[in-house]
């Protein structure tokens, strides 16, 4: 008989108007890594919030058994006291406090007078940091360490709470491949010591790499649980479970019709950091894009790709920018995003919540924002025209929403991305710059976005795609540029590009 640490039975959770979870079952064995997968909005995070007590007992139906006991968690503290710790996708760390302060926030180590015992705090903090392989001083400020290390701090914090069952919600979504692998290896290491983990992720290769079992959730219901070694445990098999049908081709095919005309050319582009003016972020970069071409930018986090794109897009990043920019052979200077937009550039940000959408506003509001002039006559908004174009873009992007008046903040990640794309497609760009366009969204939505890219180049437009997912670049691009540490390290034809080749460019650069 298997040693079940957690069993969730017929969990049903309703929000006003939506059944987020419908009779979901989940059984997790002690000491395994259990992956929870499903498209955006399938109900994974809701299920974990039920488990952790974020949604208190009574707000859902069904039963939770932990170590065989029926659990009735009312708050997060209740579940944490049992050793269930959840680490959310958006890290809950305070940038201007130290690692140690963050680790014991709300749980401070006090001496007998009731004031904080700093020696004990930092000592304990460093002890837990060593456990996760983080060799920093506990007095370092959170803002001074990278995202990868911040993720480790979160895990160390979980250890300080004496974790038995660790739940990670998209732990690698903001990490580069290297840091992500390190994190997964760490989980495998903990597994040896008996820690049970539940991992929610969109990255199927990570599941194959580290998980023992995978439970697939679709539309609020459990579809199946695949067991490594028993069932077929492959990416294709999992995708089939997620979307309900096999997906033969993850990248839609297109005829490569790269034209001769160069639509955008950048020469000797150098960008300095906006605050530290002596720090070079992009050094002497030259590249070009043809009409009907998709080019990719590969590289690790911090390679300077986003900064390059934003500095080209009307100097929206950086200081002291030098270099030349040619659009259709004409030298131009784009001083601000407004000029960039009017010259046919569009930049779809990697961070849709921070730089992309106005979450408190509707899809309609967001769709027209970058080109209000198209729905205005003499500065006065034609509300009918605005509604029409918003409907049009929503349909064209395949955004799933009850209406165009829906607040974008209430949409799922994939639909937010589509709403954001709709906003930029409305500007009718000739050159579309996509920064991590498929980050944190599900397979179905990814496919839709790939189709959109193909449609763009079919019409003779150009697409520049920045992505940390190498298979995506290899699958979608005509040419790939590799960047590292602010410099262009190489250029590959996508036909002969492999992940190994790209990696070798990055690594050779490091030496």
């Amino acid at each position, binding site marked *: 008989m298997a040693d079940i640490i957690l069993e969730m039975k017929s969990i049903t959770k309703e929000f006003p108007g939506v059944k987020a979870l419908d009779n979901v079952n989940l059984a997790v064995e002690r000491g395994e890594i259990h992956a929870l997968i499903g498209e955006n909005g399938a109900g994974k995070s809701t299920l974990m919030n039920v488990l952790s007590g974020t949604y208190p007992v009574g707000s859902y139906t069904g039963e939770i058994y932990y170590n065989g006991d029926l659990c009735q968690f009312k708050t997060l503290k209740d579940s944490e006291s049992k050793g269930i710790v959840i680490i959310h996708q958006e890290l809950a760390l305070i940038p201007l406090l130290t690692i140690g302060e963050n680790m014991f926030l709300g749980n401070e180590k006090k001496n007998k007078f009731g004031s904080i015992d700093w020696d004990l705090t930092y000592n304990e903090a460093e002890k837990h940091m060593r456990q996760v392989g983080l060799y920093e001083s506990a007095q370092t400020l959170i803002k001074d360490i990278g995202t990868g290390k911040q993720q480790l701090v979160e895990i160390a914090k979980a250890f300080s709470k004496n974790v038995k069952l660790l739940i990670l919600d998209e732990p690698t979504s903001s990490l580069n491949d290297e840091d992500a692998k390190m994190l997964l290896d760490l989980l495998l290491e903990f597994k040896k010591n008996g820690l049970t983990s539940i991992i929610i992720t969109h990255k199927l290769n990570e599941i194959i790499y580290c998980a023992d079992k995978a439970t697939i959730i679709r539309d609020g219901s459990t579809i199946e649980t695949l067991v490594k070694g028993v069932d077929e445990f492959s990416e294709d098999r999992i995708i089939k479970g997620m979307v309900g049908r096999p997906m033969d081709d993850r990248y839609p095919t297109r005829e490569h019709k790269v034209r001769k005309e160069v639509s955008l050319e950048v020469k000797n582009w150098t960008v300095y950091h906006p605050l530290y003016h002596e720090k070079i972020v992009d050094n002497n970069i030259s590249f070009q894009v043809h009409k009907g071409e998709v080019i990719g930018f590969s590289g690790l986090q911090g390679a300077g790709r986003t900064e390059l794109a934003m500095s080209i897009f009307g100097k929206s990043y950086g200081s002291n920018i030098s270099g030349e920019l040619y659009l259709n052979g004409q030298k131009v200077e784009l001083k601000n995003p407004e000029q960039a*937009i009017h010259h046919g550039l569009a930049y779809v940000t990697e961070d849709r919540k921070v730089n992309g959408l106005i979450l408190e506003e509707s899809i309609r509001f967001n769709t027209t924002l970058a080109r209000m002039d198209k729905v205005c006559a003499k500065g006065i908004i034609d509300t009918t025209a605005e509604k029409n174009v918003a409907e049009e873009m929503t349909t064209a992007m395949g955004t799933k929403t009850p209406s165009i008046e829906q607040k974008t903040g209430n949409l799922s990640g994939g639909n937010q991305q589509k709403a954001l794309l709709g906003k930029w497609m409305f500007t009718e760009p000739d050159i579309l710059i996509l920064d991590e366009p498929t980050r944190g969204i599900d397979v179905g939505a990814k496919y839709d976005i790939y189709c959109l890219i193909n449609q763009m180049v079919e019409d003779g437009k150009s697409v520049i795609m920045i992505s940390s997912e190498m298979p995506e670049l290899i699958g979608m691009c005509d040419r790939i540029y590799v960047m590292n540490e602010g410099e262009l390290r190489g250029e590959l034809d996508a036909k002969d590009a492999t992940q190994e080749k790209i990696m070798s460019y990055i690594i050779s650069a490091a030496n």
Partner: protein
Amino acid sequence: MSTKKETSGASQFNLGEFLTKNSMTIALVVVFVLFYFLTNGRLLYAQNMSNLLLQNGYVLVMACGMLLCILTGGNIDLSVGSVICMVGGLAAVLITNHGVSIFLTIPLCIIVGLLAGIWQGYWIGYVRIPPFITTLGGMFIFRGFGRLILDSKTVSVQDAAFLNIFTAYIKIPGLDTDTRILSPLVIGVVVVAIIFYSTISSRAKKAKKGYRQNSALVDFGRDIIISAVLLFYCYLLCQYKGISVMLLWVVAICLIYHFITSKTAFGRYFYAVGGNEKATKLSGINTNKVYFIAYANMGLLAGLCGLLCLARVGSVNGSTGTSFEMDAIGSCFIGGASAYGGSGKISGVIIGALLLGVINMGMSIMGIGDSWQYVVKGGVLLVAVIFDVVSHRKSGK
């Protein structure tokens, strides 16, 4: 049985939603009724009702500008009271002490208000000095200038032409005589006709294009209530002097700013900046300019308010306009503007200002002193915002 359910399901009237959406309007009605009884009906006297809008006219005008500042991210302008003192003082001194023509004085004074706004808007928008600090500075600077201009004296204005432009009552030959005033009712009937015509034409347009719309009961019910209130108010105005020019100024300003915030591209940018400045900037919108315009415009309206106050009170001294900014800010927040920016409407601000006005007037009629009025006003502001925050939390925003 089942048919009944279906009909109510199509365009359902949801009481809970109705209450949350119109909470401040309902509060205004409740407070009004309460004071009506507490004052033994004196609140509804024609003179009091006429004065309600005239006394609070300056608050409404300032609040329209303040809303734009608040929309950009909960930023407020503390200096408006001082600008009122400075501009009002300048006008009084020019007219009374130097005999300058009002046709020169009025534009000049409004330009001075605008310059004060431009001064602050420049620092806030282009140099990014926090608005609180900038306008706190402005609050002292303009108050000081005001006192310098007035030479620390009280200056009054008797120029009939000046007072007429702002405070006269309209007399339409043929309708209004010394004994009988009809013009408010006639204007009221015209406005009601316009309201019904616009509802009917908008419904017809929606029906033609197949858009979803409210049930006829809701749309016309709303129109009937608004019309009834409006006609009753006009009826009261007929009994007391008629329509004041001041009222026209205030209504015009409210309509203009309602139009700007709801129908123009630039009005929308205020909401965008308050909602997410970074995203707005990347959408090709000059966010610096949005801040600049918000504060420059506030200066302009404060300048106009300076003239309105001078005309209504008849004189200016060094402490004119003290804490006026708080009435404007309070009206915005009571009227549902978000303290974080990005949401708020002119219609809400009007309700907020009227709510404060009714409380002030009701308590004054009852003979309750200034001190208690402060306590109640503060309490209402806090309760309104608490209610707003809590009701949004419950609806799962």
